[in-house]
């Protein structure tokens, strides 16, 4: 009988501890970056916003920042964020895609392995932004 009581007390205590643990999901990430605050443009810079490219995982939209016809930054306006996995893949893929873009100075870049669809959406939106500026 005493053992049963001990087991019940431990179970309840464990449950309370478990349920009070908050997994910290970044809420701005979860909403697909629609509330993203973009850095203001410096003088001499211009922003080119691309179309929204839809992928099987969700929409991708980028904004290109140019200074003197040179790409200096790419901001991600929308990215797939239905699941935490989508966000984790984006956190890996977008910095690499942006890095490649700055090096290539065009949308002719390689896709990131493991993020083929997201890369495809990124390239499509990027190309449309560059076309807008041409």
């Amino acid at each position, binding site marked *: 009988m005493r053992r049963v009581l001990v087991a019940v007390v431990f179970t309840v205590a464990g449950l309370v501890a478990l349920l009070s643990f908050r*997994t910290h999901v970044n809420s701005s990430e979860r909403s697909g970056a629609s509330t993203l605050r973009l850095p203001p443009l410096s003088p001499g810079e211009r922003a080119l916003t691309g179309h929204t490219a839809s992928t099987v*995982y969700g929409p991708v939209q980028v904004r290109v920042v140019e200074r003197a016809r040179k790409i200096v930054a790419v901001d991600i306006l929308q990215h797939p964020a239905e699941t935490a*996995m989508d966000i984790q*893949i984006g956190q890996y893929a977008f910095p690499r895609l942006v890095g490649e873009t700055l090096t290539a100075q065009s949308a002719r870049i390689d896709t990131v392995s*493991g*993020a*083929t669809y997201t890369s495809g959406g990124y390239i499509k939106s990027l190309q449309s932004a560059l076309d807008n500026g041409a």
Partner: protein
Amino acid sequence: MPSSAAAVGAAPLVVGPRVTLTLTAVGAAAVLALWWHSTRAIVGPGGALTTVGEGLGLLSGYAVVIAVLLMARLPPVERGVGADRLARWHSTLGRWLVWGITGHVLCIIWGYALAAHTGLVSETATLLTTYPDVLMATVAWFLLLGVGLTSLRAARRRLRYETWYYLHLYTYLAIALAFSHQFANGAAFVDDAIARFAWEALYIVTAALIVWYRLIVPARDFGRHRFVVAGLRQEANRTVSVYIKGRHLGELGAEPGQFFRWRFLTRGLWWQSHPYSLSALPSDNLLRITVRDVGDPSNMLRSLRPGTRVLAEGPFGAFFPAHPDRASLLVAGGVGITPLRAMMTALTGPVILVYRATSWQDVALRAELDTIAAERGAVVHYVIGSRAELGGDPLTAEALRRVAPGLDAMEAYVCGPPGMTAAVVAALRAAGVPGRRVHVESFEF
């Protein structure tokens, strides 16, 4: 009493093994269809692992519901499939479940790690701390592993039945803890409201059935029927009959051969419930069970006092006369005689009873068996002694054919410990009795 007559007159719904398995398979096919439908694209080895992991997760989430439903005491299934077979299915499914969920966990960790280009350890940490409800689901996985471990044969032998049973209740906690992570992370549910609704409905209906049939119905029956110990009688040296009286017992529709789960409300016994077959035809105000002293619980039954209140769940079991008018062979092993003794008075056709026991001291109810046999012209064969003393298995196909001429046209009812029932069923089939005429119930403990 009109209400009682109506309850008895209505034919109870029966769902047999084939229908139960078919329905389960249809559900599994629907789950696989959902998985197929929700798999958007498989990218690289990480994507493949993740997809497999999601499939295993979905199937496990479904199988756990089936495992619970098998134990939900649903009357049509209990009556059609039988509690002993349901328990075996439940334990097989439980074993698969532990592997399925473990596979799900490993595939997801590995697949996500490949996709996110991180290591297994760092991905595990990410999953636990940033993915919604994954920590709870991980605790649920550990609980299920623990329950699985206590159910291993080696562990079962060391644990008391009640300890094992109460540890098993942690499964409900595990299911509750793992519930939400399916919707928060599962690709099948994030953008499919219909799938989410159907999945939630599956869990909610199952929970309602459990509460209804395992809690409310027994409580209601306790209030209506007022089961009370009426008296005890010593039968054989280690066997005792307990008489239980109650009101309106005819409404329960118990058949000879069926059993109830009994909980005697005394200081020492209230926390354990045991299945015991009725050992005599049930009447409207009296039931009888006959229990062999095999360990602590039945030993304590001897100390029961008349007037002790009893919680009885039932009747259960698919073991009752299928065709009472046909010639029947009854084969009892040890205390397996109890349901057959009850059947004996309900069968109207010719009856041959073979009663197997290791010693004469273990033969229970002998006087009344002989009396019934004499009154209704039945034949009783006592097969007494250990295998060594009898020179091998005494219940071979040949031996059964010898004691029961015309065996292949008879209905056969077998009850006893698992090893004995399996051997007798094999012998009956070898003797040419078709499977549908062989009715079995094995005592699991």
